[in-house]
């Protein structure tokens, strides 16, 4: 289908580097963790997780996101999706742990919302470079404990989310969800593997997307050829074992770029 035309109804400056764009079209059918392809006309089309049924939360990193940061309320975007495989939703009686780093809080936010509305017991580890970059703090406090870390110690615990994770008894959780910089997720993956709890864990990944619909193969990961846009972006910890995860990704041409 052609991209759906949406109007930006609200722009929220979440942190110095991230903004949430709320639009006039709600993707109620979307499962937390699914993404949309966001077309900034005349510029580029880039993948963004839905941070709510009618919003995306964007970190400024390069050309296209830069252009998004000059958009104003009333401006328009083209949206294809939602696409991909989202998170496995927790059952009512399950206890869940969320581990979010940086803008990785975006896909976990609708999951937290789901969990809190379903009354699911949820704890969160939220990390960011510094205090001002902490994202969605109140989304994660609505129920359960929130552990915050900052890389520079500008508030709360100084260090990484993995430091908190090391202190936690992961066996107490039925499901663990994580999203953040790949090296952070790789550490989490390693720790959970050592605790033998990989099968409980789901990771939301980034790769370079072209088609976004599972055809072109641009986003395929070694060694199983998993398509991040279609078989993911959410994968179980098991699927990521012995993969390129945390080692390299590919650029638009397919050339490998080590992390």
């Amino acid at each position, binding site marked *: *289908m*052609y*991209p759906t*035309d949406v109007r930006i109804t609200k722009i929220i400056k979440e942190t110095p580097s991230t903004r949430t764009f709320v639009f006039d079209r709600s993707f109620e059918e979307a499962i937390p963790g699914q993404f949309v*392809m966001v*077309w900034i*006309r*005349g*510029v*580029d*089309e*880039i993948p963004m997780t839905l941070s709510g049924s009618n919003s995306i939360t964007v970190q400024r990193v390069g050309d296209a996101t830069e252009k998004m940061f000059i958009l104003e309320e009333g401006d*328009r975007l*083209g949206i*294809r999706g939602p696409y991909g495989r989202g998170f496995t939703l927790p059952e009512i009686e399950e206890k869940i742990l969320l581990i979010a780093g940086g803008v990785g809080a975006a896909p976990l936010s609708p999951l937290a919302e789901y969990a809190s509305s379903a009354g699911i017991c949820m704890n969160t580890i939220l990390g960011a470079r510094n205090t001002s970059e902490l994202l969605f703090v109140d989304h994660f406090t609505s129920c359960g404990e929130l552990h915050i870390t900052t890389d520079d110690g500008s508030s709360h615990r100084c260090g990484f989310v993995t430091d908190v994770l090391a202190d936690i008894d992961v066996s107490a959780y039925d499901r663990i969800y994580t999203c953040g910089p790949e090296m952070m997720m790789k550490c989490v993956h390693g720790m959970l593997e050592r605790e033998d709890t990989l099968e409980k864990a789901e990771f939301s990944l980034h790769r370079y*997307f*072209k*088609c*976004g*619909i*599972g*055809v*072109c*193969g*641009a986003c*395929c*990961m*070694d*060694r*199983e*050829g998993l*398509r991040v846009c279609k078989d993911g972006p959410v994968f179980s910890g098991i699927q990521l074992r012995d993969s390129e995860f945390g080692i390299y990704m*590919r*650029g*638009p*041409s*397919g*050339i*490998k770029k080590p992390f």
Partner: protein
Amino acid sequence: MISITGIELENPTILAAGIMGTTGASLVRVAKEGAGAIVSKSIGPEPKDGHSNPSMIDLGYGFLNAMGLPNPSYPDFKDELAVAKREADVPVVASIFGGTEEEFVEVALGLIDSNPDAFELNVSCPHALGYGASVGSNPDAVETITKAVCDAVDIPVWVKLTPNVTDIVAIGEAAQRGGADAVVAINTIKGMAIDINSGYPVLGNRFGGVSGAAVKPVALKCVYDLYNALEIPVIGVGGINTWEDAIEMIMAGASAVQIGSAVYQGLEIFSSVSTGIEIFISDRGYKGLSEIIGIAHERI
């Protein structure tokens, strides 16, 4: 088991070029899902990032894409091809492209050590300036390029044709004269889409190529005409979504079929099409696939 240009295939479904073909691992995955052979993404002399996004949209009745031949170039792809060869257990065809015959030869020789089972020459991508169809709509260029590659390597050479020409048969004949072992028809048909909300063409490249259901009748006609005119086998591609589509293509004259966009439905497409073909052949009492290749030509 079918044999095409001397290569043995367990079944006549082949992964089309440019579909999940950029990495060795994804090619292997498609093979494991049941493809009888796999064709890589078209590989060129230099790394290319391709066009900016949007690069593909689902039209409902087909797809429109303008990837712009993104590829890591042959020095980088050599290892991916080797992975595919080592692990796929089915024939692996390397699709290659270039702007001149020298470039085609350079890429072929650059990949030959990974032992592809055949080369497919992409002289037909409609949306890469200076590459592709600009070459592929000129019979002389096609003949020269085909001859150059055939002379340089001693594995089968397939030539992939564009339908964006007045007379595809003339191009097919040029490929045959150049020594091609088979032709593959068709690549995508030039097309575009415009977002009426903004006036912008939807694709980053403004225009691209149509594939999927919409192009099947066109592909059938091209295959039908090529089968009629050429001595070498024709491999049919374009809009195959079901086993019935594949039979139709084979009856038009295809010795095997390639499947591209239908991967969108799921990778089971290869096993479902090949099983469907097998059941059709046996249910109707045909002795084998060869009995129905080009059968439409006899129905007068």
